[in-house]
């Protein structure tokens, strides 16, 4: 009997123009969202490629110059321009340390609009001053991007609700419900069956739309089946959660209008209110440690260290490298640089505790706030999508650490050579340290996010069973 009703429901839906409208609407929205994401990712990768090409060109030019200088084909330039001097290479030919986009980066902008995706650490300068913020119009950051994550988090639940809010009530309003329930059939199973059918149809529409959009914009989801499956799984669970919410509200047996209002209220609470309340209270209860105070501590520590470093070097030498002795006949042509490194080491060591303390406090704050995501399925989905896209805060923190580590590698490539008073040779360019980005170190939030969503599913199922038990048939049938 149940099979029968489901079969007719299926035929009914097929003839309904709703399904077609939904498919076209959703496909259109998804294509637009993926296009926006693709544009951002393409810009990001294009600048990285451009930078790397520029770097390669400069390398080749410098190698050629060194070659002709060594063969005395060119007059020797001033010391501060000489490509054979290691300090000039370390300063003028920095490597591009880039954060390549993950295969599914298009799905979620995440934090990618706040931070830069490449840095060029030089032989001189502190990691602290390496800027990571991206230049952008803050209005754009405030409004956010129209990406697939936005579509899934905000719009998808509304589609689910629009597709299911009156499944029970419309039958009741037209009087068919009494007839149906006169059959040997359980209300719970019948409603669940009807909603499951809709869930399958909508999920297929969503999955097909996402895959079509990804294909249109040339995202190799087949090659990244693992990530694509994770994406689809996450979105499917989220859709299912909203169907179950709708199921629960339908079971209360109210009229269509009242169902719609209640469901919208639930949506507002889960998608708009809970995240913003959590976000605001998290800032009050676990405030981000103050940067302004950190700046002060940093400057105090630095000033103190500089006084100590003055014993090693006169201040203006550090600030004015161009006044370094230009005389290369003396024993080591890099002695000024080596002295400078020594001085900046003293300074860096004394300010490091201030930075470490700050970062520790910040990490603690963020891990507290991260736990609060389990309070709303919308936050869980956002977190999971950022994780898959490689645009989560953790990814950017990891990248910053990679840059700082590479800055050190870069300097330590030159220091021993400078002590040996070596010169740069054309063939050395191939041996310069390089950086290749990997996000393997970033701990994945995905499993926890999925579990969190499944927990919400279980809660809703339990809730619907409780409502079903409490609500008598008569209640549901009465108008």
């Amino acid at each position, binding site marked *: 009997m149940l099979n029968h009703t489901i079969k007719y429901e299926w035929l009914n839906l097929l003839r309904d123009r709703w399904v077609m409208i939904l498919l076209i609407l959703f496909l259109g929205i998804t294509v637009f969202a993926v296009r926006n994401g693709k*544009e951002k990712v393409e810009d990001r990768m294009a*600048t990285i490629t451009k930078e790397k090409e520029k770097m390669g060109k400069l390398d080749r030019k410098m190698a050629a110059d060194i070659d002709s200088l060594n063969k005395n084909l060119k007059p020797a330039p*001033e010391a501060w321009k000489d490509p054979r001097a290691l300090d000039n290479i370390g300063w003028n030919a920095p490597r591009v340390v880039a954060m390549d986009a993950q295969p599914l980066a298009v799905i979620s902008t995440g*934090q990618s609009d706040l*931070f*830069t995706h490449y840095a*060029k650490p030089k032989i001189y300068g502190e990691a602290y001053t390496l*800027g*990571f*913020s991206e*230049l*952008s*119009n*803050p*209005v*754009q*950051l*405030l*409004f*956010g991007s*129209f990406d697939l994550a936005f579509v899934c988090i905000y719009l998808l639940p*509304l589609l689910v609700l629009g597709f299911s809010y*009156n499944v029970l009530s419309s039958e009741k309003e037209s009087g068919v419900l009494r007839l149906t329930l006169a059959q040997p059939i359980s209300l719970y199973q019948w409603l669940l069956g009807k909603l499951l059918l809709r869930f399958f149809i909508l999920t297929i529409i969503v999955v097909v739309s996402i895959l079509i959009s990804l294909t249109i914009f040339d995202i190799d989801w087949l090659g990244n089946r693992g990530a694509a499956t994770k994406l689809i799984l996450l979105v499917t669970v989220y859709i299912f959660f909203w169907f179950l919410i709708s199921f629960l509200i339908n079971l209360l047996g109210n009229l*269509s209008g009242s169902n*719609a*209002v209640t469901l*919208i*209220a639930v949506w*507002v609470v889960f998608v*708009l*209110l809970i*995240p*913003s*309340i*959590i*976000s*605001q*209270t998290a*800032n*009050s209860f676990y*405030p981000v440690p103050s*940067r*302004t105070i950190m*700046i*002060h501590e940093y*400057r105090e520590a630095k*000033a103190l260290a500089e006084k100590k470093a003055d014993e090693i070097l006169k*201040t*203006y030498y550090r*600030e004015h490298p*161009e006044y370094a002795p230009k005389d290369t006949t003396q024993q080591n042509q890099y002695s000024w640089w080596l002295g400078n490194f020594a001085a900046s080491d003293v300074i860096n060591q004394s300010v490091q505790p201030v930075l470490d303390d700050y970062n520790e406090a910040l990490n603690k704050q*963020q891990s507290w706030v*991260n736990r609060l*995501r389990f309070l709303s399925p*919308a*936050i869980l989905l956002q*977190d999971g999508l*950022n994780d898959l896209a490689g645009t*989560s*805060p953790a990814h950017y923190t990891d990248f910053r650490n990679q840059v700082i580590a590479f800055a050190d590698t870069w300097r330590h490539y030159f220091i021993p050579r400078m002590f040996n008073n070596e010169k740069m040779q054309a063939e050395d360019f191939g041996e310069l340290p390089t950086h290749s980005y990997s996000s393997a170190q970033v701990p994945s939030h995905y499993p926890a996010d999925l579990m969190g969503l499944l927990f919400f599913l279980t809660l809703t199922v339990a809730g619907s069973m409780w409502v079903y038990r409490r609500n008598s048939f008569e209640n549901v049938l009465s108008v």
Partner: protein
Amino acid sequence: MIFKIARKELTEIVREGRFRITAITLFALLLAALFVSKSYYTSVNAQHSEAKKNVRSEWMEQGQKNPHSAAHYGTYAFKPKYPLSLIDNGVDKYTGVSIYLEAHKRNEAQYAAAQDQTALSRFGDLTPDFVLIFIVPLFIILIGFNAFTRERESGTLRLLKSQGVSTWKLTMGKWLGLFLPVLFIAIPVYVLAALFLANIKDYGQFSLWALTLLFGVYLIYYAVFINITLFVSSLFKKSNVAFVTLLGIWMVSCLAMPKISTAIADKLYPYPTQVEFEEQIAVDKKKGLDGHNPWNTEAKKLEEETLKKYGVDSVQQLPFNWDGFLMQEGEKHTADIYFKHYQLLKDTYVNQTNVYRSTAALSPFLPTRFLSMAICRTDYTSHWDFANAAENYRIELVGKMNGDMAANSKYGDWDYLADDKLWSSVPDFQYEPASYTTVIRQNTSNLITLLAWLLLSFAALYGAVTKMKTI
């Protein structure tokens, strides 16, 4: 007649559980938002004044130094937080709070709060403006979507007509019936906000006039939503359809349009990346005078010219310290380069702003959003204004340092030291925000768009109800 209908509408709305629950929730949300924002505001302000004190004492107590070293040591400008940011925090979360002021370099504001927060903050915060701009329109839709459809569904619309009530009077009654509940919620919030703001110590720039203007803007925004709600309700036969349509309108204007406009603005007028921007500046700097580089061709040219002007044949014979002079000339040159590039950046930003201004014709949310931020001094223009003031202060500070070095030391004498007499001659950084007249002038187009929305939505409502069928 209008008031009778309004009273009937009000009684009906108030009697309904839906209204009571949502109104209480809304009011509670607004109160919570006000309280949380107030505590946030107070703590940020405390940090701000402490930081200001700190940098001043750092500057004053830096000890004996070469003036140019002092210019390198530099200082910080901290962006003040204005009382009304308690209502609308605008883009403040995404702009830095401090600018490092040093010789040779214009720095961007650093440490935007959003960068130190988790991705959760991207959902938005529960600040009063969030409730005022997103949730209140939903509330209007919720209580008004069936204003006409209900009458039509139950057949009372026909009855009313037979009584000889003009549709326009009926509509105005219903309009008031929606506007008054909104006012009942808005007025206590307004009074509370005024009390809060007046009681904040050191409330600086707060003016009751600005708060009133802000609420005026929001009331116009609500009037637009009431017009749209009644317009849609008068068009459809079924409440359900009216509700879904209104929800779609809300979603498009409040959620989708801002994002779509952003996509368009970004596509048409993209910002350079930070590294690109810095490199363009570096290229220009290299071409010109480098104050720190006596071997630079431009520097050589200046040297020749100066020597000729003073009729001497070496820089040692100049009546001032050539190093200090050269550095100040270089400083002027780099300041010009920064000015040029920031001007280019500003052009991009102005172009993007114009995109938002034109898409505002498609969403009443956009002009309201921009006006609200502008009145609260938390919009991007305010940030630019502050950054420019900080840059002017930087130029002045570095100029003073180089000038002192040129006047009081000899060429090559890098051991010359200045002391707190010079440091104290540099006044503390003071920033006065643009006057409200300027703010209003900058936002005339937003104001006009919002008023156009009000008039056009009234006209549409009028057109719809006069043609309205009773069945």
